[in-house]
């Protein structure tokens, strides 16, 4: 199979304007992935499927990942006037990095028996801009898996033929796989000696 760099060049040549980035992976598995921008993701997916050399016709796994907002603390040298004298002072600066939701697609080729090529698409943030293009028209395999991502992570896939909740019931309000998901307060008595459960039980026992 072609290396990820070659695949990237191939896509860049065929789809001008596509913003591509290779995400490194330091584990022994060394499965690096290709980050594609939202606007060109659908075209890229179609190219990967139809290209005679790549022929990635089998979408094995599609899943979501939730990356929370992170803040990175850095030491920055700042010039300040201290007691009338200009000095260089170390100051802690906190940089906020916005979190995002990510859809990850693992592609294989049955025709050429190679793979995996890992495709990632990211949303802008975790709150209001959570739309991604659906790849279901390219690979039917994404149909239920994207529904599952929508159900559990709340990514809204534009162009999906039937985007409904799949594992949770209709009318469920939150996205349970998100990292900041808070369990609803629907305590039932359980025969357990654990403190946290008993604490949770306190307000419910009259």
């Amino acid at each position, binding site marked *: 199979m072609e290396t990820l760099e070659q695949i990237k060049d191939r896509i860049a040549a065929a789809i001008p304007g596509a913003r591509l980035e290779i995400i490194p992976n330091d584990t022994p598995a060394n499965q690096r992935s290709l980050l594609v921008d939202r606007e060109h993701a659908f075209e890229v997916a179609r190219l990967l499927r139809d290209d005679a050399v790549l022929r990635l016709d*089998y979408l094995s796994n599609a899943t979501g990942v939730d990356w929370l907002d992170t803040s990175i603390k850095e030491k920055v040298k700042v010039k300040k006037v201290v007691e009338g004298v200009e000095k260089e002072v170390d100051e802690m600066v906190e940089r906020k990095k916005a979190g995002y939701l990510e859809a990850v697609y693992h592609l294989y080729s049955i025709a050429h028996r190679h793979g995996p090529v890992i495709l990632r698409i990211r949303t802008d943030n975790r*709150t209001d801009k959570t739309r991604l293009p659906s790849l279901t028209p390219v690979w039917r395999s994404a149909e239920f898996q994207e529904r599952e991502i929508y159900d559990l992570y709340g990514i809204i896939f534009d162009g999906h033929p039937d985007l409904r909740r799949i594992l949770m019931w209709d009318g469920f309000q939150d996205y349970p*796989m998100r990292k900041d998901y808070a369990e609803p307060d629907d305590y039932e008595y359980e025969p357990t000696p654990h403190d946290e459960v008993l604490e949770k039980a306190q307000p419910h026992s009259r």
Partner: protein
Amino acid sequence: MPAAEISSPPRNYEVMPKASPNGEFDGELLEVAMGPHHPSTHGVFRMDVVLDGERVAKLKPVFGYLHRNHEKIAENTTYLASMPYTDRLDYFCSMTNNWAYALSVEKLAGLQPPERAEYIRIITAELTRLVNHTCLVGFLLQDMGALGTPLMYAFREREKILDLFEALSGSRMMCNYMRFGGCRADLPAGWLDGAKQVVENYPRFLDEFEAFLSGNEILMARTQGVGALPAELAVSAGISGPMLRACGVNYDIRKVDKYGIYDRFEFRVPLGDHGDVFDRYMIRLLEMRESLKILRKALADIPDGPIVDSKAKIRGFKPKVGEAYGRIEGPKGELGFYLISDGSLNPYRYRVRPPSFINLTVLEDMCVGHSVADVVVILGSVDIVLGEVDR
């Protein structure tokens, strides 16, 4: 939270043309919920079927009755503590589930199981395949109306293999046997002889089973041409396992990825050409015979030695930051685990790629136009286990 997006669109089925051109029937459509407590759905699985007389006009599978958010549980426990939970995904095949998870973690952490462990893994995985396919054939016949007898024969044979699993791991079904970088315990004394005995007797059972089934007129009438799946759709829809090979697509991960030490074994990959229920049934019977071939060689060749990689840790296992996707050819299809590590004790992201869930993608395509009785048979041939579908 975008509240407006949460409500799901109403399910409005478009009105179908009248059933009969000469107006014998009124052509009214009937929406029926098959399941979740229907005896043929192999668990709590529901199909919203829109019927036109006896024919299926539309079918939507409804899941989630057994949903316990296995992935969330796993993200909140250590890597090792998810291992017994994987037993409960596809509770017929706990050994292959263990292997798939162990394989992914080994990819993530760079562990290499020793030779003997690889052999034990292959032996247990192929025995699991026998268990799964034997049961599936029994259940499929049960769905077709061969009540009781074939299923009981299948269960009798399955019990012999489960006895082996119990002697090895301590539990019949919830084996929790494999570990990162090897297996938990070595084979007990006399286990190999017991396994050889089972493998030697198995073809006799298969012959007996096939003698009165494969040529049976009723079975052929109920299965041939029913639920045919075109190969292109199967590939596009991510179908895997015996269902994909029944469509004539030669794709077996044991051959493609050669994970473990499958490259040392000679076996053939049975392929169908119609992709109907009969092909799926036949493929499974043939696969069992190939599994027996692998088993015979593995049981004869198994070397002595350690069973766990010396680098593997039981307590405080922390892989490096990164991710890995590992997959194996489970009895039901491609079983994959996708793991992201953030360097802590718990996986940051843990995802199961459940074969029977994704194989249901094409259930509607296979069922439309067939009668309700055929839906039962088609679903039976997909081979689902709800523990895995709903997770």
